[in-house]
């Protein structure tokens, strides 16, 4: 298992993912692609998040996908890319995805 990449300077491989529910963006997030479930090979936390959403909204209505793969970059750069995607979405739609509302509010404080 790889090290945590909580420090901004830590380098690694990241993915920016999106979760859609009923075709609407529910959340953008950053996944550490070096921390995957051994058996499935998928980002651990993302799989867990998806299962919780299936229970509420039904599997057929939920999709998860990696939209950007970032190789050998710092946590800080990955956060910036995640933020750019989120800001682009807000600019185009005028809406903050439900799953990003809390973190977006904290960021703006």
């Amino acid at each position, binding site marked *: 298992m790889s090290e945590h990449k909580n420090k901004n300077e830590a380098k690694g491989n990241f993915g920016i993912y999106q979760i859609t529910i009923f075709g609407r963006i529910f959340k953008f997030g950053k996944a550490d692609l070096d921390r995957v479930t051994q058996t499935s090979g998928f980002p651990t936390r993302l799989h867990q998040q998806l299962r919780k959403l299936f229970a509420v909204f039904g599997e057929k209505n939920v999709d998860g996908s*990696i939209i950007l793969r970032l190789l050998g970059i710092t946590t800080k750069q990955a956060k910036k890319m995640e933020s750019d995607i989120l800001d682009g979405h807000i600019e185009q739609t005028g809406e903050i995805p439900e799953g990003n509302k809390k973190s977006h509010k904290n960021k703006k404080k």
Partner: protein
Amino acid sequence: MRTSLFTYYNEPSCFFRLSAETKGFLMSAIDELLEKYPIKVKAQTLEILLCNDGTDRFEVIKTSTGRGQYLSFQFWLPYPKITKNKVTDLESFTNFLFEGLILALEPFGIPKSEIQKIQEIVKNELVENPKYVYVPSRDELVMEKILAEMKEKYKDNPNIII
């Protein structure tokens, strides 16, 4: 046992475009099969993760998750054989999905011929039926635009794959 069929794509831009109606119909078809041929395992849910890595990889991998609650499989389906110009061909998709189901379920005693019977029913229902056509949502179209702009912006950076 119930079926949980879901999608997770870990290769940017390589998504199977499947409507909720298509996924719902597939799950109920597999549920019918499991009702007729119950699998004797502790798990209550047959979990099928549909994925691809953008290549011709076709593989079914049995995984163990959820402390035995789930009988889980990953179906790696060949993206270029199923998708043309970003449109998912439902006939080809159904063929590979059911090839995967044979690999996954035959070892549990479900006859191949029964799985193939369901495959024909599914194909007759899904293929060229407007009810199951995938229509991108507003958010999906917005994301396509944002990602196209980012692709152009970072086209010279090999560490950013969009």
